[in-house]
């Protein structure tokens, strides 16, 4: 049945039936106040082809109405019936739709559910083989860095989930799937560091500082720009280069699977910015100011979440992995490729910002001028 509401006649017949049942129950001492059909009763969702019963297909009528502003302070599921005596437990700071909404969050969540994987059994760990010492150390340094920064991408969304009204449950659900993904990432990179005769290496102090910037964001969109657009976007570019810096099938699988996850996270950030730019155009200038900060980090190479940031152990490790060794010639070659990686990061950032609806900054002189050098090189 199409998700139309019931005709009046059918609803009237049902009301009569309920009246009879209520009378029966109440004569026996039951209250049965809850026994009332909602306006959507008897309707059915239209299932997507082959995908099962998906979150994006189920809501209709009042249940589909994500309000522009939420007064739900009891944490009740959207569309449910409020109780006048329920305590107000939800100290939600995100109660305005534009602050967190995007159009495809439920789809992204369901895709995440379908694409879950296991670092224990889905990585061909048996393909690891002994590597030259400098290569193994570089692998382990990069893995240490990625283990560290993945904590950021899991913990910070957690805070915002708790801050968001359940009336906007779709973006919350996606962020929950992100927490799951990031847990798996920090887990798989720790496993890589400890599975091939190496070990964890040095904490990257810069990553801790950059992580704090994401932690400290006072607005969800500001946080999302720093985390999804910048941080995860940069890491995604690296993961997509995984084929070039892998020395066995296990590493290739790690980067391939992690990239699949990260692309959803980046998509969330892009689509949220896109929604916000359309729903709250008055916030565009504010968003541009966040992008100004992000671009400054990109061009001076100060973004601590970026393994390709200059002067960091993770960047040196990338150069060794990409060049195939730690001798000067190999490092020189690897460093040149790492620079190309940074160019690619910038190009992908530019494209994401354009898709998000803020591409005007690349035409009106607002964007950081040094970005052009990356794009042109």
């Amino acid at each position, binding site marked *: 049945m199409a998700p139309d509401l019931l005709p009046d006649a059918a609803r009237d017949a049902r009301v009569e039936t309920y009246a009879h*049942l209520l009378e*029966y129950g109440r004569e026996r001492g*039951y*209250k049965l106040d*809850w026994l*009332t059909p*909602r306006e959507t*009763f*008897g309707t059915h969702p239209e299932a997507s082809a082959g995908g*099962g019963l998906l979150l994006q297909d189920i809501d209709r009528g009042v*249940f589909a109405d994500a309000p522009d502003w939420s007064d739900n302070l009891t*944490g*009740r*599921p959207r569309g449910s*019936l409020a109780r006048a*005596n329920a305590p107000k*437990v939800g100290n939600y700071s995100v109660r305005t739709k534009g602050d967190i909404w995007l159009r*495809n969050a439920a*789809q992204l969540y369901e*895709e995440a559910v*379908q694409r879950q994987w*296991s*670092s*224990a059994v889905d990585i061909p*760990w048996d393909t690891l083989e002994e590597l030259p010492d400098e290569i193994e150390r570089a692998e382990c340094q990069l893995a240490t860095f990625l283990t560290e920064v993945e904590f950021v991408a*899991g*913990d910070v969304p*957690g805070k915002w*989930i708790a801050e968001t009204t359940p009336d906007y449950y779709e973006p919350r*659900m996606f962020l*929950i799937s992100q927490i799951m993904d990031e*847990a798996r990432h*920090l887990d798989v990179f720790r496993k890589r560091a*400890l*599975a091939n005769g190496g*070990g*964890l*290496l*040095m*904490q*990257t102090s810069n990553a801790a500082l950059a992580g704090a910037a994401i932690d*400290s964001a006072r607005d969800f969109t500001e946080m999302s720009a720093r985390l999804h657009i910048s941080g995860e976007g940069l890491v995604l570019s690296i*993961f*997509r280069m995984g*084929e*070039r810096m892998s*020395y066995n099938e296990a590493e290739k699988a790690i980067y*391939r699977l992690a*990239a699949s996850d990260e*692309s959803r996270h*980046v998509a*969330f950030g*892009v*689509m949220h910015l896109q929604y916000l730019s359309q729903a709250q155009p008055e916030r565009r200038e504010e968003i541009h100011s966040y992008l100004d900060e992000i671009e400054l980090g990109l061009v001076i190479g100060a973004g601590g979440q970026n393994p390709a940031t200059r*002067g960091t152990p993770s960047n040196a490790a990338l150069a060794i992995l990409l060049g195939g060794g730690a001798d000067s010639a190999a490092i*020189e070659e690897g460093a*040149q490729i790492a*620079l190309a990686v940074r160019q690619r990061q910038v190009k*992908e950032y530019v494209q994401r910002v354009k898709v998000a609806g803020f591409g005007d900054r690349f035409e009106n002189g607002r964007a950081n001028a040094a970005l052009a*050098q990356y794009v042109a090189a």
Partner: protein
Amino acid sequence: MVQTTRKTARAKGEHAGNGATNGATNGATNGATNGAGAGRVIPTPATPPAPLMVEPPDLSWMDKTTGWGTRALPDLVHGGGLTIDALNIGTYSKVPDHFPYRNRLPRGAYPSPIAGSIGGYYLQDKWEQWADCAGQMYEEGISRRWSTATDVPWETATGLPDDVEIALCQVATELSHQGSIETEVVCSWLQNLSPGYHEVKLFLATNVYDSARMFEGYRKRGMVNGGGMLFESPGRMNRAVMETFSGWTQTVLGLWFLRGALQLTILRYLAAYGPTEADSVLAARMIPDRMRAAAYAVDHIRQAIAARPDQRVAFAMWLTNLELAQAADAKDPVLWEALAVALGGGVKQIDAGMAIVRRLQHDWVQSYIDRARSAGLERGTDLGRPYQAMLAEGATAAT
């Protein structure tokens, strides 16, 4: 050999992100990669501009390790793969009683002297969060992953009398609401639990995923025939669980002892008496999810008491507070009536259904007592009258 391996990988030019660009990510990530030529060889710039100048790298980090030569092995005998617990060997097997870093230093990594504090992560003691089973529960959560979209035979959720269908929607609303609250509560703690005990954080990631699945799975159940979401939870227990910021351990007691036992018992009854196959399967699928939370909770409380015996009384007092809140919710008839109609087969069979509910209540309270006892907390004499009554009436109903 290494060089050959690298060149081979280069020559393949496979796109690492291929799997990610289907479906919902189209547009966002596809658009983002335009022009970047993902998967092809990136040309090395011949004359890099100033921002792209190569700097000689500092390689001093290469010797900064606390335990080089570690080789964790996958479990090839039982097929469990390379588990997170398998990494705890050598230097990395040491789980300290106190983790002094308030940043994201991975346990066992070489700490940077200038990393500093980034705020949060104030639960730095092992006893405040640890459970030996956390790593195992994490891996089990991953290996038992499932989807409400495709693993529940939703097409069988049909043909019920209207009153039974609405009753199930009311039960679904309660479970969905509880799942949502649990997600919020656990998520709010993640930034406070030290990365030094990453096994716990990993397990909790699976837990928020599980509780979110309870939220969305029962929302789907409510919506599949249009009944939707009915009355929200009474809310006293929600408030009690939310207001446990005195400590994570108190939150564990709030989420996974009395309330967790109630959820599990309801799910077991729905799995057994579910009026449709979809209802049985949905509930049965969620039982292992809830069991993992219970396992972590019992293990954590037991170990917390072992490490800090002085806390046993405080934990018991906290349970008393939680029992009062839950008792206030239990006075409300909505959930019990809905369960009676759903499990009994309709309003006309509500008396028979209420007899089942009495047994459910008995099993719930007994399960709670057993769970608390396993953790080292005796509730027998401290248990309030409402619960004593449920035990007594349920025993009568069972006979």
